[in-house]
């Protein structure tokens, strides 16, 4: 009584499905402690993505740990952390009270670096640096200033003959910490903006079109004559796009750079590191800048996480806030000040596994 070959085939097929399902699993569980901790998954801010993609490639070379970071936007990073689908998130906006409540257990915000949100534009034939005052900026994004040769804009840029071109406003289509920094700034300088739009990772934009990620916004600005958009400094410089000077609270027009960002972010961080530095009072500080935070759960033992994985995670960020800082400047991010590094260290030391701090074990 032989089983028919078809039956066998079906059996083999089912076997393969089963194996491929458990195969990965059993293969994983036999070396759970090592292979499981070999890859870490992070998601979030596109603001910091150029830095992370460089840092994590280096970290992989040095330690063999693979860090998979997907730049899906800060809002996405927060959500995926809440859903516990990632090991860490990265956000340029601290969690709101509502989000903290959804997360359930406390989330630590570890400052990684600070960066400038710059205004970049595409005016055919014009390479000069434009100057923007806060009012003009708010006007453009509120849709009250619609043409490049608007008197308000022309009068602060007397050296340039601005073209008679409609302004194509570009903003982010996804929830973004870059947006959060930018709208936070606009809300501080324009009561109109504060009442009509507000500040958040994603807002209801009065005008313009959306690009996905910093990548998408710079892509759109680059392709659209007459466009203006806000992106992280690194994106503008890497794409050789012009960058505007913005007038800060002390009345100076400031070029966004590492130095002017550092000047703005050189403040005493509160213990939880959640702070905005937009519209800085520092005389040579660039007004639209902010921190980006790696966000992770303070108590790392949740779900089926192994201790090894949690340790690798903490080690990774210890490396990022120390050795990793050396790569910030090359990629146009402002490294943490010594005081900020201390705050970051303290925060990282507060991360626990089963109530025990992870860092003695992890500290090299």
């Amino acid at each position, binding site marked *: 009584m032989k089983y028919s070959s078809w039956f066998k085939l079906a059996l083999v097929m089912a076997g393969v499905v089963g194996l491929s399902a458990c195969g990965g699993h059993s293969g994983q569980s036999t070396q759970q402690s090592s292979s499981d901790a070999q890859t870490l998954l992070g998601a979030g801010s596109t603001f910091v993505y150029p830095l992370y993609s460089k840092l994590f490639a280096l970290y992989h070379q040095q330690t063999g740990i693979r860090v998979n970071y997907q730049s899906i936007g800060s809002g996405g990073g927060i959500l995926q952390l809440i859903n516990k689908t990632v090991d860490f998130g990265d956000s340029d906006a601290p969690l709101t009270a509502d989000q903290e409540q959804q997360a359930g257990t406390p989330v630590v915000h570890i400052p990684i670096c600070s960066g400038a949100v710059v205004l970049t534009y595409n005016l055919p034939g014009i390479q000069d640096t434009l100057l923007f005052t806060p009012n003009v900026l708010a006007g453009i994004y509120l849709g009250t200033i619609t043409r490049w040769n608007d008197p308000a804009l022309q009068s602060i840029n007397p050296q340039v003959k601005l073209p008679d071109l409609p302004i194509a406003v570009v903003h982010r*289509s996804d929830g973004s910490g870059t947006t959060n920094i930018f709208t936070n700034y606009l809300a501080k300088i324009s009561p109109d903006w504060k009442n009509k739009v507000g500040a958040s990772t994603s807002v209801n934009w009065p005008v313009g*079109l959306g690009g996905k990620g910093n990548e998408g916004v710079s892509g759109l600005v680059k392709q659209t004559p007459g466009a203006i958009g806000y992106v992280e400094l690194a994106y503008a410089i890497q794409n050789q796009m012009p960058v505007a000077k913005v007038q800060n609270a002390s009345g100076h027009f400031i070029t966004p750079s590492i130095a002017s960002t550092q000047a703005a972010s050189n403040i005493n961080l509160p213990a939880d590191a959640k702070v905005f530095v937009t519209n800085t009072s520092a005389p040579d500080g660039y007004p639209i800048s902010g921190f980006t935070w790696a966000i992770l759960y303070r108590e790392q033992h949740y779900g089926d996480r192994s201790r090894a994985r949690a340790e690798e995670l903490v080690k990774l960020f210890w490396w990022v806030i120390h050795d990793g800082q050396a790569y910030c400047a090359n990629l146009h991010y402002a490294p943490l000040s010594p005081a900020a590094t201390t705050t970051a260290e303290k925060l990282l030391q507060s991360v626990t596994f089963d109530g025990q701090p992870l860092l003695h074990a992890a500290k090299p």
Partner: protein
Amino acid sequence: MTRFLMAKPLRLSAPQAYPTTDKPAFRPDKLSPAYAGQHKGNSLLKYISLADRKDKLFRRVLWMGGLTILCLVLGILLTLIVGAIPSLQAFGIRFLWGKVWNPVNQVFGALPFLVGTLLTSFLALLISIPFSLSIAIFLGEYFPPVKGRNRFAHLVREAVELIAGIPSVIYGFWGLFVLVPVIRKLEMSWHVLPYGVGIFTASLILAIMIIPYAASLGREIIALVPQDLKEAAYSLGATRWEMIRHVVLPYARSGIFAGLLLSLGRALGETMAVTMVIGNTSEIPQSIFSPGNTLASVIANEFTEAASRLYLSALIELGLVLFVVTTCMHLIGKTIIHRFSA
């Protein structure tokens, strides 16, 4: 005693111990035991009863396969409905015509996306109709690709099928780099805001994408028109065009309508290409050149980052709306075609 009773059913010589509920075409177990007994020993009977058991198992497997499909569809529907409950509770039916989509204030309305979806889809359909219809008539009436004849017609059909297979994301990619700059130049010469991306661009891409689908549907429908009706028209002295105009098209009218519905369903649910060229803004589009968002593109953009329960649920409700609308279109279209070809 009890042991004896328990052992009894295990004896294979009693085929009646396996009652059948189903009705197989052939039931060897219905052979009378007397007949089986004549072929001495019960090896044949054993064989038959084992085969019978396998039959039943086999039927069960097939049945389960079918049932899986049903479960999948019900599961999908249920998942969407459950996911949409918080939003349904918060906004009710007003969700559908809420004009504002504002994640900051947690006010969600689907109108901008409904408008965007309908506008792009109908515009795409409008643009594609003359082209898809002409390909359908070309292949269905003028040059039917019959085996061994009409090399050119074969080529056209193959090309249409090949093009229908290009993934959405590649259309989007192409659109972003080739179509968008062209549209931008056009917009500059028409003195509208030269975004390049927007409802109009998305409609064009959608039109290109649904032409192959609509054309092959149309071809099948036109090929279904009975030959004797056509001959009758010819015998009355009609020219080819008159025959098409007065026989083929009226006869195929309902089928072509169904084809349009199906294409529309396609266009409504199309995600990637549209997401890449529509401009992604949650405002109600002011003109066909302004940027917008469709139901599908807003989900693709915002689903991984909807950081509050209500936000996420509102997105899922958009998915539910999309699901219901496309499914209705599809089912109605298919029913009409089914009636037409029956």
